[in-house]
């Protein structure tokens, strides 16, 4: 070994191994590559040994992930070396470094051909292997006949023939038009008689490729396969070297059974009998044994046998045996077997008459949905989805709903989509369907795309019996403290249309319905406002006898929006206002929406389309394919474009007897769009443009609607002049070698910027970048930390801890211990705001790079203003509220000095950035600002906050601020918060010495860092503090 070991290579590998960081490694690699490059340049002096050594180094560097853009020629030239060791390196390295289209390969074709037709069988093997791995068209054209000859030659030894078989497979697959396989059935049959198991193993792979393309031509080979299987199963004539833990080549057994699955059926009774005997023996004779490897190998064979039995659709008895086996498997402890049990049960669903037997295992499958292993959970979800039908839809969907509350984010989207599809496909009754979808919106609103709630509206509109139920449900959900915007949309729509059907129930008078909807008004985005306006108009129309107070309230809203910048909102407000003055004529114009023309569920259609794209084998795809062929193994050639027959739509059966075919579909669409064309001008209840497009167009299952909202915030907050507040000791990176690491950029500035916007960089140093992206909804926040390793070696011992202040509930998902080179890891973070406070959550983050231990403590921008939602208030709303909150502790006033002098407009901008909405015109004095916002927390729920700032034009460094809200702590905290934003704080006491942000940690800093309180207050007890102030 030592004799042909390459010392230079070993030294290089060992050098690389000793590099303590990625930078050193890169330097070492660059040095080596430079060296090789120079040596290659004056090639004359190179011995074959040196050449070989350098080429291996290149392969090593390539494997490490560095680009090696030279020396390819040298690697290729080694192929023509006369001696085996050099030639071998040439072939192997060439097939690793070059792809099939590389020009240099062409230069080698002649040498390769000479090796293939030459007498040296070791050279033949090398050449066949390389062509088998990367051979392209030109190789096929010049070599295919030679390779075929070798494969069939009786004088050729098995070690050459087995490679020839796979080489031919490559050439055939890549260029079926060049490699002629006509008349190969006889040759294949001859090959399958082979005694040598190596040749047989590779020939079987070739056979699978041929038969998958055209099984008709290979009927004569079928008995041969059965014979091979019999030989192996009975362990006849199998050399010891080919038995693996006592099992005759499990790989050849598996491959042979796979080949058999490409024949639709087995007609010859004799062959069939023999095969079923073998299969029966495998099914019944595979026991669980202690030795893991033996167990795996025998189960590999067993699972393939199961697949073959399913494919052949054997007698009922054997099929139930299979299901029973799978049922046993899905309950075992061994996770691999459990996984495969679930996977194969899903495949089994294709056999129609076993579905009822599979249902017996429903409880066990549902249990697997809660397995700690995500691979198993995914299989369980797929299986449940596939086995769902009218009889068990209720149970399964309810399980999915229940699981949704605890499911991890990786699965929520898929879960909610699948639950929605099943609910629609198999609903036993419509009220159940409506109930399920509303629950889905409630639990996973972010994942419920518009098309799902559009569908609910369609069903409710088209089914009178359903309307009171739906309206009552919608009313119920609006009572919840935190309601998803999608829920607001669907509820407002349904209550607007059908709220009057509830009139006699408690809490359902028009006024009460209006109030409960309008309560949500401050929290919704512009896309929802038009729906709310329509709902108000409808409520107004349904109010009998007319209620002047309600009317004035609604008119005021219409008035307010008549000048809205959004055209859709403006038009609706103006038209509704005008129409509602018409009195009785309103009744005709605002009549109930006409029934929707029925159409195929866009949701299901979309799901089916997606399945075709998704490479993942999921139940729907399998079922669709089942309609086309009963071949279990799906080959590339299978016609995946054929549209599956429309699914039986239970909902359709209830009220809408026929399912529109694709043809009807388009015409129906046209009718509707015409109808809507007039609707927009006359009917005051037009679906918004988006809504229309979404109902009619192909549906996209969209991401969370939050994105749009977020971007709005970004626009608002892209303002400079971030409060110039210096940091206390909030950021304290600690390190064993602290002075070796300097963060890039100012951590404090980054934090302040992120307080005003929702995405950006939180921290960066030479090794890592931590980005953040946040979404806020009411008192919930979802942040995603993006941990990006900037280097080409991994960061290890990565740890992230959240030190939350008492008022925040923070949950960080698992952070991986290692961040691979150049990789970015995403760690979601859930935040719930319990009560008002200005304390800040801290991320304690550490990692190791080489010997450097880096630890930083970073404030997280989950600050008070993130839980604010700007809300415009009118004078009628403002003044009564302002007056009713008459004094301390609900209303606090303070004269603030030392304010950073700002023009009024800029100050207004700054408040806007903090999500306080300036309400112009409310205060008669032009030097004053009035603002309003809603604050969200679990204890206060949504609470309106009113702010007034009086400035002195003569002295811009002082002002008087007055804050009012329904909660004393909130009032205090908000006041302090606003002061922080306005006051110019002198640079913080960093102590003597350079105020670098990199100071060694004086304490472990377990407590959250001091918040940015202007005064040194006992911020923990604002109540006591307030008492002192008053």
């Amino acid at each position, binding site marked *: 070994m030592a004799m042909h070991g390459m010392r230079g290579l070993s030294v290089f590998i060992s050098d690389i191994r000793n590099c303590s960081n990625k930078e050193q490694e890169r330097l070492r690699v660059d040095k080596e590559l430079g060296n090789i490059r120079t040596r290659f340049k004056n090639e004359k002096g190179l011995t074959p040994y040196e050449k070989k050594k350098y080429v291996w180094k290149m*392969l090593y560097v390539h494997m490490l992930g560095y680009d090696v853009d030279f020396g390819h020629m040298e690697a290729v030239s080694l192929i023509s070396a006369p001696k085996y060791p050099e030639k071998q390196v040439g072939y192997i390295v060439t097939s690793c470094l070059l792809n099939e289209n590389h020009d240099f390969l062409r230069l080698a074709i002649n040498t390769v051909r000479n090796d293939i037709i030459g007498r040296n069988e070791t050279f033949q093997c090398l050449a066949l292997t390389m062509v088998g*791995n990367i051979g392209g068209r030109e190789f096929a054209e010049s070599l295919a006949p030679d390779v075929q000859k070798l494969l069939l030659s009786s004088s050729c030894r098995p070690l050459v023939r087995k490679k020839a078989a796979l080489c031919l497979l490559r050439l055939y697959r890549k260029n079926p038009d060049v490699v002629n396989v006509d008349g190969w059935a006889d040759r294949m049959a001859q090959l399958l008689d082979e005694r040598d198991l190596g040749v047989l193993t590779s020939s079987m792979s070739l056979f699978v490729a041929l038969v998958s393309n055209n099984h008709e031509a290979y009927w004569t080979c079928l008995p041969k396969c059965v014979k091979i299987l019999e030989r192996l199963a009975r362990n006849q004539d199998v050399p010891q070297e080919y038995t693996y833990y006592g099992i005759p080549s499990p790989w050849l057994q598996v491959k042979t059974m796979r080949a058999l699955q490409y024949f639709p059926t087995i007609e010859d009774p004799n062959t069939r009998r023999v095969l079923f005997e073998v299969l029966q023996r495998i099914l019944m004779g595979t026991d669980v044994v202690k030795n893991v490897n033996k167990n795996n190998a025998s189960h590999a064979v067993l699972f393939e046998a199961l697949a073959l039995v399913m494919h052949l659709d054997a007698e009922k008895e054997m099929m139930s045996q299979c299901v029973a086996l799978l049922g046993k498997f899905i309950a075992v402890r061994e996770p*691999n077997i459990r996984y495969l049990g679930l996977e194969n049960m899903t495949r089994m669903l294709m056999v129609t008459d076993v579905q009822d037997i599979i249902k017996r295992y429903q409880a066990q499958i549902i249990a697997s949905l809660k397995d700690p*292993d995500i691979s198993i959970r995914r299989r369980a979800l797929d299986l449940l989805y596939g086995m769902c039908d009218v009889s068990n839809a209720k149970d399964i969907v309810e399980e999915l709903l229940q699981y949704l509350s605890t499911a991890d984010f990786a699965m929520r989207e898929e879960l909610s989509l699948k639950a929605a599809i099943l609910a629609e496909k198999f609903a036993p009754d419509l009220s159940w369907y409506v109930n399920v979808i509303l629950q889905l919106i409630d639990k996973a609103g972010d994942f419920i795309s518009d098309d799902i709630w559009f569908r609910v509206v369609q069903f409710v509109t088209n089914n009178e019996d359903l309307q009171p139920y739906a309206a009552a449900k919608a009313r119920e959900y609006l009572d919840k403290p935190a309601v998803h915007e999608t829920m607001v949309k669907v509820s407002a729509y349904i209550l607007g249309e059908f709220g009057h059907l509830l009139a006699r129930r408690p809490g359902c008078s028009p006024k009460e319905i209006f109030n409960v909807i309008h309560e949500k008004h401050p929290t919704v985005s512009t896309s929802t406002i038009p729906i709310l306006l329509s709902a108000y108009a409808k409520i107004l129309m349904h109010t009998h006898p007319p209620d002047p107070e309600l009317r004035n309230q609604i008119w005021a809203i219409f008035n307010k929006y008549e000048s809205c910048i959004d055209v859709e909102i403006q038009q609706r407000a103006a038209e509704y206002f005008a129409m509602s003055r018409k009195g009785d004529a309103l009744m005709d114009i605002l009549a109930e929406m006409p029934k929707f023309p029925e159409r195929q569920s866009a949701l299901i259609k979309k799901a089916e389309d997606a399945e075709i794209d998704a490479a993942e084998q999921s139940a729907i795809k399998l079922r669709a394919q089942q309609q086309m062929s009963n071949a279990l193994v799906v080959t590339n050639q299978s016609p995946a474009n054929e549209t599956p027959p429309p699914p039986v739509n239970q909902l359709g059966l209830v009220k809408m007897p026929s399912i529109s075919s694709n043809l009807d579909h388009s015409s129906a669409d046209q009718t509707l769009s015409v109808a809507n064309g007039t609707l927009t001008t006359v009917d005051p209840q037009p679906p918004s443009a988006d809504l229309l497009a979404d109902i009619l167009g192909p549906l996209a299952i969209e991401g969370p609607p939050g994105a749009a909202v977020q971007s709005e915030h970004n626009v608002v907050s892209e303002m400079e002049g971030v409060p110039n507040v210096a940091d206390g000791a909030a950021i304290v990176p600690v390190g064993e070698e602290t002075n070796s690491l300097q963060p890039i950029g100012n951590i404090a500035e980054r934090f302040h910027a992120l307080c005003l916007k929702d995405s950006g960089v939180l921290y960066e140093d030479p090794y890592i970048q931590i980005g953040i992206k946040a979404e806020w909804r009411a008192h919930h926040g979802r942040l995603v930390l993006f941990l990006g390793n900037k280097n080409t070696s991994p960061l290890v011992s990565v740890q992230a801890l959240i030190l939350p202040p008492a008022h925040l509930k923070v949950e960080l998902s698992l952070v*991986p211990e290692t961040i*691979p080179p150049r*990789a970015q890891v995403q760690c979601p973070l859930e935040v719930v705001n319990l009560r008002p406070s200005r304390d800040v959550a801290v991320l304690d983050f550490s990692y190791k790079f080489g010997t450097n231990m880096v630890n930083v403590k970073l404030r997280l921008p989950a600050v008070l203003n993130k839980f604010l939602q700007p809300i415009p208030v009118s004078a009628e709303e403002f003044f009564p509220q302002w007056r009713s909150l008459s004094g301390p502790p609900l209303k606090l006033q303070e004269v603030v000095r030392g304010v950073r002098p700002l023009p009024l407009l800029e100050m207004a901008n700054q408040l806007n950035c903090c999500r306080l909405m300036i309400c112009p015109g409310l205060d008669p004095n032009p030097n004053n600002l009035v603002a309003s916002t809603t604050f969200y927390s679990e204890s206060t729920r949504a609470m309106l906050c009113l702010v007034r700032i009086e400035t002195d034009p003569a002295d811009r460094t002082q002002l008087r601020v007055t804050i009012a809200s329904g909660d004393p702590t909130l009032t205090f905290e908000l006041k302090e918060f606003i002061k922080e934003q306005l006051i110019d704080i002198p640079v913080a006491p960093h102590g003597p010495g350079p105020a670098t942000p990199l100071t060694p940690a004086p304490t472990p800093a377990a407590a959250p860092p001091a918040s940015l309180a202007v005064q040194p207050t006992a911020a923990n007890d604002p109540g006591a503090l307030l008492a002192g102030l008053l």
Partner: protein
Amino acid sequence: MGIRFVLMVNKQGQTRLAQYYEWLTLEERRALEGEIVRKCLARTEQQCSFVEHRNYKIVYRRYASLFFLVGVDNDENELAILEFIHLLVETMDRHFGNVCELDIMFHLEKAHFMLEEMVMNGCIVETSKANILAPIQLMDKTS
């Protein structure tokens, strides 16, 4: 096609051997290795050996500090691949004697020779250890 790639990666995520049976650019390979290493290395012993990734599966097995990760098509027989990994390890073991990460690292060429005798173009060529090792032994003798 069957096997798409064979990777050997240690606990720290460093690649010790990479053999691809379909052409990927350097960037694609780096990204792929990063993703699957992150996915697989975080899993516990109690979890199954199969991980679904993009449109294929990874069948993996851990031996001391080294992970063997094999990317396969979705319809591949998972257990057969799992035992194929073991066969590979046993073969290396027969050659090196108590094979460890360093053997593979410092004898990268031999690891490649063995794999090349076992897998070709994503298909299994040979499962007899004697046959797999014959060319290497021949070379050891002649050189």
